């Protein structure tokens, strides 16, 4: 059981480039989330989705786009990479009970992204 899988693990981008961070889960979870963690800071919610075709903004959505065409996949798109987007990105999934279930969120191992 793989859980939440994120690819790539590391990436260096140039300013202005675009890329898609991939996230897939095999637990048939309805809810999926994208967070970023800057050095010395807590995780901040970028976007989340409560099911295929439904996405919502979190605390820091600017500069990102998401889509949810299937239950399993929740890719995060950076269109015009900026140095401020240098961060570690975590994808997570949960059941419909969300953060208040007995297993609130399962996280992937993260993608470390540097923009130079």
């Amino acid at each position, binding site marked *: 059981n793989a859980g*939440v899988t994120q690819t790539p693990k590391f990436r260096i981008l140039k300013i202005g480039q675009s890329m898609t961070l991939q996230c897939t889960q095999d637990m048939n979870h309805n*809810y999926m*989330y994208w967070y970023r963690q800057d050095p*010395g*800071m*807590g*995780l*901040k*919610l970028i976007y*989340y989705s*409560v099911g295929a075709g439904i996405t*919502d903004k*979190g*605390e820091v959505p600017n500069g990102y786009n998401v889509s949810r065409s299937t239950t399993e996949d929740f890719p995060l798109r950076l269109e015009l990479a900026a140095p401020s987007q240098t961060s570690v990105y*975590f994808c*997570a999934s949960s059941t419909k*009970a*969300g*953060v*208040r279930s007995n*297993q*609130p*969120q*399962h*996280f*992937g*191992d*993260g993608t470390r992204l540097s923009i130079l």
Partner: protein
Amino acid sequence: DQQVKQNSPSLSVQEGRISILNCDYTNSMFDYFLWYKKYPAEGPTFLISISSIKDKNEDGRFTVFLNKSAKHLSLHIVPSQPGDSAVYFCAASLRYNNNDMRFGAGTRLTVKP
């Protein structure tokens, strides 16, 4: 605006002793609190949670205490073990949005053998 604060970046304790990790919050609309543990190069893993209708929740060696009037919660680990060495994040969920959590910056716990 840091709504969830963990003011101690690091904590070092001896194996077998108690570890106490603290967390303060400012938003009175938080009504559910969680602790996550994170090892290097891995994602956070859920540890324990507490609803605002309770003041204590216990799971094995881990106990979370909530003081609503002080907007403060703490995680107690007894006895501490070297495998507990990790970064611990406090998180809070808003009353009106089950999916929006705010995280503290984390406390790095080192348990010395």
